[in-house]
């Protein structure tokens, strides 16, 4: 199989990246300083992430498109303001999750950011659902970089004037040396930051300028520890077709207005689960010692009954200890419930805890 490279590949190489294959792309897992330092640098300064492997799906249309998309996504898109973004999911009729995504209303329609491993399948599903009524472009000519951390607003604003005035979960077109870039104030690390969609030909130049301002390239390894500390889900691990948004404890992302009408794919199951509760639910889990409970670790209750499974687990550098998320039988999902995690044949104590592990510092309003 042909492994794809992003437009920043050469810069990654120059920066001594260690590469891994991820969703068919050669991606940097870490650079010379290592995951822990990269993680802390993002929390304290400003990290740049190449996420160009993710899908950038542009769907063009007006009122008709809004109606059609509302049959698919549990969002109030009609009342979504221009350039505002929402977190959502593409579900099947049983409310199983095909993908989680960010959808933004643009002046020409919608921009949907999709997971790399899912984007081709998502495209196929959406094309069928929309019956080819609307022009859809999964744009391979644009790169996507995220810049995250407390110094990111200043560093990016030095290069792309005006971005610091963006509100959280909103975007706009800006200019980078006469090139049009679409920037949203968003991210997936629990830090204030931005995602920048830019033509492949200019992404190298923009990234180098951000590095000159003091930001550093950060690999996928630290991206994973950052998002887990922030309590955010990773598709294929914490989310998949066997889990619904209600089970994933993501009901905040489902529009209340839309639930009352219930005319979107998967709405029957969603409404049933919201009314009757669910048998398993996603929770945060904090091991008591230093032991790391990774994906697929079994969870037991105090009577040694198997009650769930870890879906993501690692060492959290800012928490300075192990952190995990998993699905557990609902009756054991209460905060501070004591559970046991089976690691290498031994049971280790842990506690159910609230998420995130690390407190967010998103900017709500603009800094004027």
């Amino acid at each position, binding site marked *: 199989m042909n492994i794809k490279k992003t437009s920043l590949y050469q810069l990654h190489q120059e920066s001594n990246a260690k590469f891994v294959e991820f969703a068919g792309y050669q991606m940097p*897992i*870490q650079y010379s300083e*290592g*995951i*822990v*330092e990269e993680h802390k640098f993002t929390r304290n300064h400003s990290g740049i992430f190449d996420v160009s492997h993710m899908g950038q799906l542009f769907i063009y249309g007006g009122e008709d498109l809004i109606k059609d998309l509302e049959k698919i996504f549990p969002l109030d898109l009609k009342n979504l303001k221009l350039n505002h973004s929402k977190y959502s999911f593409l579900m099947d009729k049983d409310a199983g999750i095909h993908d989680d995504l960010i959808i933004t209303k643009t002046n020409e329609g919608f921009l949907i950011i999709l997971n790399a491993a899912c984007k081709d399948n998502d495209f196929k599903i959406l094309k069928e659902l929309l019956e080819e009524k609307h022009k859809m472009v999964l744009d391979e000519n644009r790169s996507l970089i995220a810049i995250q951390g407390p110094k990111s607003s200043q560093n990016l604003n030095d290069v792309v004037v005006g971005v610091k005035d963006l509100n959280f979960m909103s975007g706009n077109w800006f200019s980078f040396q006469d090139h049009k870039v679409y920037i949203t104030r968003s991210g997936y690390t629990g830090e204030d930051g931005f995602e920048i969609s830019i033509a492949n030909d200019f992404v190298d130049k923009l990234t180098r300028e951000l590095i000159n301002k003091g930001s550093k390239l950060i690999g996928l*390894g630290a991206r*994973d*520890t950052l998002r887990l500390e922030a309590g955010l889900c990773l598709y294929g691990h914490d989310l998949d077709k066997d889990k619904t948004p209600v089970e994933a404890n993501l009901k905040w992302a489902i529009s209340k207005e839309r639930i009352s009408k219930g005319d979107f794919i998967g709405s029957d199951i969603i409404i049933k689960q919201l009314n009757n509760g669910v048998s398993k639910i996603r929770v945060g889990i904090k091991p008591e010692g*230093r*032991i*790391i409970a*990774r994906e697929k670790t079994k969870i037991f209750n105090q009577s040694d009954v198997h009650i769930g499974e870890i879906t993501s687990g*690692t*060492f959290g*550098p800012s928490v300075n200890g*192990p952190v995990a998320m998993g699905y557990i039988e609902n009756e054991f999902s209460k905060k501070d419930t004591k559970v046991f995690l089976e690691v*290498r044949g031994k049971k280790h104590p842990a506690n159910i805890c609230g998420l995130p592990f690390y407190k967010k510092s998103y900017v709500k309003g603009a800094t004027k």
Partner: protein
Amino acid sequence: MSEVKYSKEHEWIKLEGDVATIGITKHATEMLGDIVFAELPEKGSNVEKDGTAGVVESTKAASDVYTPVSGEVVETNQEIIDDPSKINQDPEDSAWFFKLKIKDQSEMDTLMNKDDYDKFAKETSA
């Protein structure tokens, strides 16, 4: 005189009298990345050559630590349990893992010397 030997599983072993000190090599720590957890065998337990005798975990994954020789565990290094990042900082000296009372000194002959190990490490990581 003490002699340091190396295993294909990237452990080093230093024999002084009949007590062997065992740790993982600098090359191993570079492959693993930031080490954030270490588990060691219990003092007083017996370990068999090439058997599992501990675990190290990086942010990415867990890896077994093997013992290159058989013997009884007489000491373990609490410092690396309390602060696993010491393994990255000084893997071939102060961040040793455990000490064994060695059972069969001839097992040392099956291991590599420094030159052979360096060559082996270079070839296998290429």
